[in-house]
C-alpha cells in the first residue's frame, strides 16, 4: 500500500482535513482523544503489517500533544491528539495493540498523564522513592542538583 492509498483509506476513518502528508512516507492524522481507540482498531484491521513504534508526548504550554507513531511496510503514520493540561487523561490503546504498554507507562511517569484501562499501571522508569507529583518532561519541571556533601569536608 503506498502513501496515496493509505491516505484514501484514512480519509474514510476520519474527516479528510485531519489527514496531512508533509513528506513522503510520513502521514499525520489528527484525532480527538475520544475517537482514538476506534481509529486505532480500524487501522489495525485494515492496514497490513502494522505496529506501534512509540508514543511521544510534547508539552505545548496549555495542553499536551500526544503522538502515536505507527509503522508499516511503506512508511509511518503518526496519530496526533491533544489533551488539556488541567485534566490529563487518555484512553489506553493496549486493547488492540498489547505492545504499547511500556510506552503508555512511560507517558504516565514522564508527563503525569493518567492512562485509563492500562493493564499494568505501575511506574516504570522512576525509582521507588521518587517524590509524587514530579514529572520530568513537563516544561515547568527543573532539576536542581542537590549540593554535594563531602563527608569530612568543609561545612
Amino acid at each position, binding site marked *: 500500500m503506498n502513501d496515496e492509498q493509505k491516505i484514501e483509506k484514512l480519509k474514510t476513518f476520519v474527516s479528510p482535513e485531519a489527514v496531512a502528508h508533509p*513528506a513522503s*512516507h*510520513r502521514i499525520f492524522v489528527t484525532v480527538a482523544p475520544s475517537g482514538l481507540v476506534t481509529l486505532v482498531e480500524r487501522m489495525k484491521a485494515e492496514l497490513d*503489517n502494522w*505496529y*506501534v*513504534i*512509540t508514543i*511521544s*508526548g*510534547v*508539552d505545548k504550554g496549555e495542553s499536551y500533544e500526544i*503522538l502515536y*507513531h505507527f*509503522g*508499516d*511496510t*511503506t*512508511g*509511518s503514520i*503518526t496519530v496526533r491528539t491533544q489533551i488539556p493540561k488541567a485534566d490529563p487523561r487518555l484512553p489506553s490503546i493496549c486493547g488492540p*495493540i*498489547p*505492545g*504499547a*504498554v*511500556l*510506552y503508555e507507562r512511560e507517558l504516565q511517569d*514522564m508527563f503525569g498523564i493518567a492512562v485509563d484501562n492500562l493493564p499494568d499501571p505501575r511506574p*516504570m*522508569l*522512576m*525509582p521507588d522513592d521518587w517524590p509524587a507529583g514530579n514529572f*520530568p*518532561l513537563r516544561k515547568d519541571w527543573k*532539576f536542581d542538583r542537590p549540593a554535594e556533601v563531602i563527608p569530612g569536608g568543609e561545612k
Partner: protein
Amino acid sequence: MKFQIPIGPQHPALKEPISIRLTVEGEVIKDADLRLGYNHRGVEKLAEEKSWIQNIYLCERICGICSHSHATCFVQGAEKLLEIEPPRRGVYLRYLVSELERIHSHLLWLGVAGHEAGFDTFFMYTWRDREVVMDLLEMISGNRVHYAINTLGGVRRDIDETLRGKILEGLAVLKARSEYYFKIGAAEPTFVARLAGVGPLTKQQAMDYCAVGPMARASGIDRDVRKNDPHDFYNEVEFDVATADSCDVLGRTIVRIKELFESYKICEQILRKLPDGPIAVKAPRRAKPGEVVSRYEAPRGENIHYIVANGSDKPERLKVRAPTLANYPATIEILKHGFIADVPLIFAAIDPCICCAERSVELVDARSGEERTLRFSDLRRMANDRARSLSLQRNVAWPL
C-alpha cells in the same frame, strides 16, 4: 507452590542493570516481570538544553555498542529541520560506518550466543574476527566505540585510496570467516540442537507485541526500515532483507548471519561507487519551527527519533525510542512457559546467572507444597529423567 527468582538489578553476571523476576514452578517459568529504570539518565530532558550540534554527541552516548545508530538517526532528522542536504560522498561515508557497525554488533552477538549455548570456541572465533572490523572503524574514525563521524550536513572525516584498499581487504577477510560461520551448524549439530525451539515467538505474537529487528525478522516478518522506510541512500544499493521462519533463537542466529553478508554486500557497493566531492556542508545554527520523524535500522532493530524545533538553536523536544525497549514486551511473552535454563539464551546479550539462585537441596513440591529433602543421587536421577522426556529437537537441520 510457586517461587519468585529475582535476577538483578546488580548481579555479577549482568552487564547492565535490569531486574528480572521469574515466577517458577519447578523449572518451568510461569510468569516473568521486568523492572526498568536503573540506568535512566534523562537524556530526553537534557537534549532540550543542548544545541543541535551538541546533541549529536549526546545521542552517540545513548548506546555503547550501536553508538553510530542514534547519532545517525538524530542527524537524519536534524538535517531535514535545518533544511540542509549533505553531499553524496558524506552520505556514503556515513552509511559505510553504519554497515561496519552492524557487522561488529552482529559478530558480538554471535559470540555471546555461542557462549550462552556453551560453544565457547565460536565465541572466541567471532570475537577475534570482530577485531578486524573494529580496526577498520578505528582507521576511519579514530575511535573504536564512539566514532563521532557524524556532523550536521555530512561527516567529519574523509577516507583516501589507501584506506579504501584496507577496508576492502578487511571485508574480504571477514567474508571468508563468515562463510565458515555459515557452515558451522552443519559441522556442529549440538549447537543447532541447543538453539532450535528455544524462545518461541509466533508471527502473530511478534505482530501483537510490536517486536522489531532480528526478533521480528526471525518470526517471518520482513520488517526492516532500510527497505520499508529508507533513507534515499538505501535505494541506491542492492541488498535483501534477511528473514527466517523458525521463530526461535536458531532463527535469530540465522537472520544475523545472513545480515552479515548483506552488510558486506552494501559496504562493497559503497566503496565501489563512492562519489567524489566534499564530505560536508555548513549547517545553520537555528532551525525553523517544525517537526520530523526520523527512523533508522540499528543492528538490534528500529530506532525512532521524533524531533520538534521551535526556531531556536536547541530542539524543543527530542523523543528517542531504542529497539531493545520495543522488544521487551515480546521477551516477557517468550519467557513465560520457557525453562530457567533457557533464560540466558533468550536474554543472550544480558547474560544472567541462574545457577546462583538454584543451589538449595531442600525442595518444595510445586503442586502439593510439601517440603522434602532429597539426596543428590535422587536429584540427579530426576534431572536425567527430565532431560530424557524433554521435547528437545534433536534432528534439526542447519538451515543454511
